[in-house]
């Protein structure tokens, strides 16, 4: 199972080991880890999602990445629920023979995840809790993949 939406934290070393096990053709693994930033006095966040559609969206994102790059393996884990500053939010792993495919596919997955996967962040800081606005730069990042 290459896509997971879960409350629990993930173990990047275990995920990488599982990803590359038994495939001697993998020469490059890229990981992206997203963390809760404490900028602006933020102490925690609540991550809401759309159960059912979220998994479907992540699977579509993975399929699209596999169609565009020669990938040996992909793993996407996105957490939901309450997360504190410094906690992991998301893990994307891409494995390929060569580094360029792995790098580009990981970036692609993150760009699409930011704009297509139904997650919403509510940040808790010194002035109360606020829903995070979508960033124009994320839309722009997604558009560059055509």
């Amino acid at each position, binding site marked *: 199972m290459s896509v997971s939406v879960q409350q629990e934290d993930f173990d990047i070393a275990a995920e990488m080991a599982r990803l590359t096990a038994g495939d001697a053709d993998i020469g490059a693994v890229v990981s992206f880890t997203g963390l809760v930033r404490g900028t602006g006095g933020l102490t925690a966040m609540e991550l809401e999602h759309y159960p059912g*559609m979220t998994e479907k969206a992540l699977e579509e994102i993975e399929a699209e990445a596999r169609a565009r790059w020669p990938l040996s393996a992909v793993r996407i884990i*996105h957490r939901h629920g309450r997360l504190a500053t410094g906690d992991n939010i998301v893990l994307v792993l891409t494995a390929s023979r060569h580094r360029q495919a792995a790098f580009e596919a990981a970036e692609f997955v993150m760009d699409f995840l930011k704009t297509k996967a*139904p997650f919403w962040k509510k940040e808790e800081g010194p002035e109360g809790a606020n829903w995070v606005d979508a960033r124009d730069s994320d839309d722009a990042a997604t558009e560059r993949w055509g």
Partner: protein
Amino acid sequence: MKVLYFAWMRERVGHGSEEIETAAATVSDLVGELTAREERYAAAFADLSAVRVAVDQQQADLSTPLAGAREVAFFPPVTGG
């Protein structure tokens, strides 16, 4: 038909899920019916440019037809990752 609301749309409407009877032909018609109901719905849909919609868990828009649809979800632009 099941209608879902997420994030601040859920907070404005006051609940995350409801079953409704509707003959709305499109998402736009459904939005019209909901906003006519009560002030809290009107508040949730006040700025349609900030509202996204999925029909049966697929991205949709205001013109998407609802014939045969079982689940419609309204939410703000996503902010995951």
